[in-house]
């Protein structure tokens, strides 16, 4: 073959034409490229106010002492630990969706896993705040780390709190890695289409990703392995969090069902939070065609499953208390339902055990406003579940002389509100900075569809 004439070679060298960009790119990037709307700014302002209030109360609490919270003898753990477990629970949905469903090859998860992973990370950060809020002497809290020190003093590895330290920091790191690895291809896409500081930011973060096959193969394998690691991690982290209670001999805590019970509860409240956040985001940014009702229906099925598990756990706890014949356990559980905290117990039972069963009806499973309401109730119910376990467990223990009562104080409510603001701020910033839907994963389906059978565009993914 003789070489083609130079002019034809020269003809080949021409600037790549500005092709019509991929519709998926355009849709998703519109979300974070647009100038923030008034609604966004208002929300961010509100949350900053909440965060400022929470932070100020926290600093005052560090100075004045934990006395400003509602603790009383013998209830040494209160709303802060409840909210800590609540946030750690929510954190598990993200990893579950992206890791476990990836292993199951459930393709429907592609649209939702990025936002779920983002929520994981922000929820874990918020949860870790509470370790600092709950502890009595934060200026000495570094003692809990097994760092080599001149005192030759180490830490007590037998303590569930230390397992917590390891579990949650591992979970934070692995989730961050998982989130970041999934984000790299999208950052490359964004790098190629933005200018100014965004190009610099995305360029730096994308680490020079070009989507070569070697990189894709390594990326696939990495995501596979990370999912393989993250799945047991999810189950272990919330088991460790449940062992904070199960390892104690408080009646009502000391039960072997705690690990699966907490993991199911975590997934349950995690999915609910993902839905609670993604429904408005979908509505505001018009991502209906990517985040279809099919996704929401699948997630509602999952909520139904975990609601059954959690409902079973409530029942089995009462049965075991009765079956064990230990009077302290029986009294603790009887007073849980009919004692001074009966309201929170019944909120827990109804919101977690009864309301989600509305999802048996397909009509309700696909009716988005209903899903939103039920998910919000579920999260309230899950907060109260931890409240019930911790507070009623501690308030009616072995020694009736020191039964005590606890009422959350304004300082605690302010700090908890601050934590929700903190979570929302991170999520709002994420919305305006990174693609909320994984472009490359969605594009994989789109290209796949177009390659194989034009047309069934809407239904397929």
């Amino acid at each position, binding site marked *: 073959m003789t070489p083609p004439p130079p002019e034809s070679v020269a003809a080949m060298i021409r600037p790549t034409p500005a092709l019509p960009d991929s519709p998926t790119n355009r849709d998703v990037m519109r979300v974070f490229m647009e100038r923030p709307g008034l609604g966004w700014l208002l929300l961010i302002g509100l949350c900053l106010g909440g965060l400022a209030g929470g932070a100020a109360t926290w600093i005052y609490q560090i100075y004045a002492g934990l006395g400003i919270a509602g603790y009383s003898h013998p209830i040494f753990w209160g709303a802060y630990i409840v909210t800590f477990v609540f946030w750690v629970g929510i954190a598990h949905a993200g990893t579950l969706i992206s890791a476990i469903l990836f292993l199951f090859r459930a393709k429907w998860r592609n649209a939702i896993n990025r936002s779920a992973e983002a929520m994981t990370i922000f929820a874990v950060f918020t949860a870790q705040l509470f370790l600092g809020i709950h502890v009595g002497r934060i200026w000495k809290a570094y003692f809990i780390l097994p760092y*080599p020190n*001149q*005192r*030759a003093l180490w830490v007590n590895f037998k303590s569930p709190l230390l397992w917590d330290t390891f579990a949650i920091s591992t979970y934070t790191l692995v989730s961050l890695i998982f989130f970041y690895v999934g984000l790299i291809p999208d950052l490359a896409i964004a790098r190629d289409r933005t200018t100014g500081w965004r190009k610099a930011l995305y360029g730096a973060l994308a680490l020079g990703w070009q989507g070569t096959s070697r990189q894709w193969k390594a990326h696939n394998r990495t995501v596979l392995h990370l999912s393989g690691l993250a799945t047991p991690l999810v189950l272990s982290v919330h088991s460790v969090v449940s062992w904070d209670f199960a390892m104690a001999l408080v009646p009502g805590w000391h039960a072997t069902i705690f690990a699966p019970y907490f993991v199911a509860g975590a997934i349950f409240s995690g999915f609910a939070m993902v839905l609670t956040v993604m429904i408005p985001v979908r509505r505001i940014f018009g991502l209906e065609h990517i985040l279809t009702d099919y996704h929401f229906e699948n997630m509602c099925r999952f909520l139904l499953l975990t609601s059954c598990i959690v409902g079973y756990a409530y029942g089995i706890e009462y049965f075991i208390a009765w079956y064990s014949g230990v009077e302290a356990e029986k009294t603790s559980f009887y007073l849980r339902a009919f004692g001074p905290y009966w309201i929170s117990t019944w909120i827990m039972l109804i919101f977690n055990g009864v309301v989600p069963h509305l999802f048996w009806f397909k009509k309700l499973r696909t009716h988005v406003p209903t899903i939103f309401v039920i998910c919000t109730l579920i999260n309230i119910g899950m907060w109260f579940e931890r409240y019930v376990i911790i507070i009623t467990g501690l308030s009616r223990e072995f020694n009736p002389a020191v039964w005590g009562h606890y009422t959350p104080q304004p300082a605690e409510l302010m700090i908890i509100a601050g934590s929700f603001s903190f979570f929302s701020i991170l999520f709002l910033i994420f919305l305006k900075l990174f693609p909320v839907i994984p472009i490359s994963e969605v594009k994989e389906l789109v290209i796949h569809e177009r390659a194989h059978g034009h047309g069934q565009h809407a239904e397929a993914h």
Partner: protein
Amino acid sequence: MACATCLAVGLVFGLSGPEPVAAQAPAAAAPSGPRSSQKAYDAQAAASDPDAPGLLQPIPFSHALHAGEYKIDCMYCHTGTDQSRAAGVPSVELCMGCHAQFGGDMEGVQTLKKFWDEQKPIPWLQIHRVPEHVKFRHNRHVQAGVECQRCHGPVETMDKIHLTSDTIWWPWLLPSKKLEMGWCIDCHRQNQASQDCLTCHY
């Protein structure tokens, strides 16, 4: 704050006698006795040299002169160190025991006499200090035969008391300076002394 033994010492002078035994303060006699030796003057100069390591004390007292040169035993001034947790700080009366007779020509001794005449304690500055949550027992260490220099350094050669450095290195490549916990623990381990936390923290 709790073991403010050093601070509280002397603030309240408890006596079982009816009236405080206030010995008559000898009249501030003219500088009696022979002129002090040149060694004494050098020591006083060294003790009041602001550049030398260690804090400037209200009276330029030189341990090198008293303990090194005159070989006065530690326990003579620091009484009670072998019986009590706290090391006794010499009372002004103890200093005057000797300096009432000699050394009057030296500026340091004149300051001492001024304190004595006003019946005011000498506010020495503490050099060797362990945090307030540590209950260090002098008597146990003295009884166990640990000599004072082990922690206080070669006092008999110091004109100005200062913290000499004696750092040990842990196998995980971290140093522990003198009077820090690691340093004490290392010594306790070498001498099979108790490593029970309640020995020093309660």
